[in-house]
C-alpha cells in the first residue's frame, strides 16, 4: 500500500474526530440558542475570543472523553508496538514484523510511529484523557484548600493571617521542579509522605462543604442535618477510598502513582489560590453589604461563604481557567522529567520527552503532543480572557 498524502491524512483525521465535531456543534447550538438564560456562561458567547477559547478547550475535553473513556477515536492500542513501524513517517500503512495485521485493524499510522513503533495519533488522543481526568479536579481541590484557608485569613487577619501567609510564602518560594523532585520519587512514596499529604489535603473539600451547609442552614436544623449527613457519608466514603485506599465497599480506589502526582499538583497550586482569595476577601470585607450582615448578627462563616465568596466569583472563575492551564503545564513538566507517571504512559509531557531525543531526525513523534498541549492551554487562556472581559462588563 502507498503512504497517504498530507491531504488524505487531514481528511481521515477530520473523519475520526466526527463524534467530537458533533458534540461541539450541539454544545454551541444549544448554548447560543439559550445564551440569555445562562448567566455568565451565556455571556461568554458574546465575546469572539471567549468563544474561540471555549471551542479549543471543549475540543480536547470531548476528545479526551470519547477517546479515553469510550475508546472511540483511537485507531490503535496506545501500548502495542510494531517493530516495522519504528519512526515511520505520517500516513505509513500499518504493518507488523511477524504475520499479517488483524484485518479489522486500522490500515494506517496517521501521524506515524514513535521510536518504539507505537501509533503517535492514538497516543496523542489518549494523552488528552490523562490531562482531562487530572487537571480540572486538581484545580478544584486547590481551590477548595485555598478558599477554606484564604477566607478566614483575609477576614480575621491578625495572627492567623500572618501564620497562614508565612506558610503559603514558604511553599511559593520553592522552585516547583525541586519540589516535584523531592516529593515524586519512589523513595519518598515508600515513606508514605504523599499519602499523609493527601489525607490532609483531601479533608478540605469535606470541611468546605460542611461549613457551607452549616453556616447557611443552621437555623433550620432538620434541613442542615440532611445536607451535613449526606456530605459526611459520601465525603468520608470517597475520602477513605481516595486518600487511604481503604474503601470499606471496595469500589473507590486511586492508583498510587497518580495519587502522588495529584497531591504534588494540588500542593503547588493551593498557596497561589490562597493568596488570591485572601486578597479578594480583604477587599470585599470593607463593603457595605458585609457591614450590613455583621449588623444583622450573622456569624463569620456565613458572611465569608455566602456574602464574600459569591461576590468574588468573577476573578476566581477567571483564575480557575488559568489554573487548569497551569496545572496542564505542570503535569507536562512532570511527564517531561519522567516523574510520577508510568514510563509507558501516553501523557503529553512523557511523549514530548520521548520524542525530543530524536528530534533532529524525526519530527513527527514530538510535534503532535506539543501542539496538543499548546492548543489546550492557549484555549484555556483565551477562555479566561473572554470571561474576564464579560464579567467586567456587568
Amino acid at each position, binding site marked *: 500500500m502507498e503512504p497517504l498524502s498530507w491531504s488524505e491524512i487531514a481528511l481521515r483525521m477530520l473523519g475520526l474526530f466526527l463524534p467530537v465535531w458533533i458534540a461541539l456543534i450541539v454544545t454551541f447550538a444549544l448554548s447560543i440558542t439559550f445564551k440569555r438564560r445562562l448567566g455568565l456562561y451565556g455571556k461568554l458567547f458574546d465575546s469572539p475570543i471567549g468563544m474561540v477559547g471555549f471551542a479549543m478547550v471543549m475540543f480536547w475535553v470531548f476528545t479526551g472523553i470519547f477517546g479515553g473513556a469510550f475508546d472511540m477515536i483511537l485507531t490503535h492500542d496506545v501500548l502495542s508496538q510494531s517493530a516495522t513501524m519504528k519512526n515511520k513517517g505520517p500516513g505509513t500503512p500499518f504493518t507488523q514484523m511477524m504475520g499479517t495485521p488483524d484485518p479489522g485493524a486500522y490500515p494506517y499510522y496517521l501521524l506515524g510511529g514513535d521510536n518504539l513503533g507505537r501509533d503517535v495519533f492514538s497516543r496523542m488522543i489518549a494523552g488528552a484523557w490523562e490531562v482531562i481526568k487530572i487537571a480540572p479536579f486538581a484545580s478544584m481541590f486547590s481551590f477548595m484548600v485555598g478558599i477554606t484557608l484564604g477566607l478566614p485569613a483575609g477576614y480575621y487577619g491578625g495572627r492567623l493571617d500572618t501564620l497562614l501567609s*508565612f506558610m503559603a*510564602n*514558604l511553599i*511559593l*518560594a*520553592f*522552585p*516547583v*521542579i*525541586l519540589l516535584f*523532585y*523531592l*516529593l515524586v*520519587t519512589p*523513595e*519518598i512514596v*515508600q*515513606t508514605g*509522605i504523599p499519602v499523609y499529604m493527601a489525607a490532609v489535603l483531601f479533608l478540605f473539600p469535606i470541611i468546605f462543604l460542611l461549613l457551607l451547609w452549616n453556616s447557611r442552614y443552621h437555623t433550620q436544623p432538620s434541613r442542615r442535618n440532611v445536607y451535613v449527613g449526606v456530605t459526611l457519608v459520601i465525603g468520608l466514603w470517597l475520602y477513605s477510598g481516595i486518600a487511604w485506599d481503604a474503601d470499606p465497599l471496595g469500589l473507590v480506589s486511586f492508583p498510587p502513582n497518580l495519587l502522588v502526582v495529584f497531591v504534588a499538583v494540588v500542593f503547588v497550586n493551593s498557596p497561589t489560590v490562597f493568596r488570591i482569595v485572601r486578597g479578594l476577601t480583604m477587599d470585599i470585607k470593607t463593603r457595605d453589604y458585609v457591614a450590613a450582615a455583621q449588623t444583622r448578627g450573622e456569624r463569620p462563616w456565613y458572611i465569608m461563604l455566602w456574602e464574600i465568596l459569591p461576590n468574588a466569583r468573577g476573578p476566581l472563575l477567571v483564575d480557575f481557567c488559568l489554573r487548569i*492551564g497551569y496545572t496542564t*503545564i505542570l503535569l*507536562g*513538566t512532570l511527564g*517531561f*522529567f519522567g516523574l510520577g507517571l508510568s514510563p509507558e504512559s501516553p501523557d503529553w*509531557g512523557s511523549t*514530548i*520527552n520521548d*520524542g*525530543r531525543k530524536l*528530534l*533532529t*531526525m*524525526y*519530527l513527527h513523534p*514530538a*510535534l503532535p503532543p*506539543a501542539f496538543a*498541549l*499548546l492548543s489546550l*492551554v*492557549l484555549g*484555556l*487562556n*483565551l477562555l479566561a*480572557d473572554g470571561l474576564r472581559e464579560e464579567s467586567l462588563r456587568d
Partner: protein
Amino acid sequence: MAMFILRRVGVMILTALCLTFIVFFLTNLYPNLEKLAKTQGDFRMSDEEVASYLGRNGYLQPMAVKYGQWLGVVPGFVILDRDGVTRGQCIEPGTAPEDAPRFCGILQGDWGYSTVFREDVGKILGDKLALTGRLMFWVMVLMVPSALILGILAGMREGSRTDRTLSTFAITTTATPEYVSGVLFIAVFASTAVGLKWFKGTATAAMDNPTFENFFLPVLTIALYGMGYIARMTRASMAEVMTAQYIRTARLKGVSFPNVVMKHALRNALIAPFTVIMLQFPWLLNGVVIVETLFNYKGFGWTLVQAAGNNDIELLLGVSVISVVVVLVTQLISDIGYVFLNPRISVR
C-alpha cells in the same frame, strides 16, 4: 524604611531556615539514605551493612543534630571507627583529627562533598552558577526590553488592532511552556528534517564558547515564556495610565501623542512591571531547569536534575539553598523597589 527592611530580612532568614530544613528532612529520610548507601557501596548490601555504612558516616544521628551540623552551629560528628581510625565530618582525609576544626557547615563556607561529581559542592555550584548566570543575563537582555516595548505598544491605544494582535501574541507565549516552545524551535530551526539548520539543537558547546548559533535558541525559549506575562502586565498598567486625567490634560494642551507617551505616561506605567519582572525569577528558575535539560547545557538547572535524580544529598541541599535565596532576595528587592519607585509612597 530601615525598620521595614530589617523586618523583611528577618522573615527572609526564617523562611530560608524553614525551607532548607524541609529539603534536609526530605532528602535525609531513611529510604533515600538507603539508596545513597547502596549507590555508594554495593547494590547487594544487606540491611545491616546499610545501617553500619550510614552509622559510620554520621547519617543515623537525630535529624535536628544533623541539620545543625550541616548548618555549622553544632560541632561536626566524630566517630571512632572499628578499625581504630577516628572519622568525622570535619576531618579531611590526611589530616590529624586533633587539627580539624570543630564546626564545618555552610556557615563556615563548607558546602560538603558531591557523591555524583566527586568534587566539592562549593566549587561545582560556583562553576555552574557562572554558566547559568551567562544564560540568565542574555535572557534578561532579550526579554525585558522586548516585553516592555510589546506592552507599551499594546497599551498605548487600548482596543486597537495593534493591541489585539500583540495581546494575542502575548497570550500565546504564556500558554507555551518551555518544553513545548523549545521542542518547536529545535524542530524548525535545528533539525535536518526541515532543513533550515540556522541554529544548533544543543547548547553543550556554548559552555566553553557561546556563539549566536548555539546560544540563541535556549535564550529565546526561556525569554519567550516570561515575556508574555510581563508584556500583559505592562499593557494593563499602560492602559490604566493612559486613561488618567493628567494624560487627557496633556493631550488637550496640544502635546503630541508620542510626547505624551514618552514623557508623561511611561514613567508611571513602568512601576508595576518592575515588580513583576523581579517576581519572575522563580519562574525563570523553572525555565532554566527545563531548558538546560532540553539543550543539554550543563548549568545550575542541569545540576539540580542530576543531584535530585541521583539523591546527591549535599549537592541538592546546596542547590536548594541557592535557589531559595535567589527567590527570597528578588522578593525583597521587588518590595523595596516598589516603595522607592512609587511616587505615592515616597514623596520627593
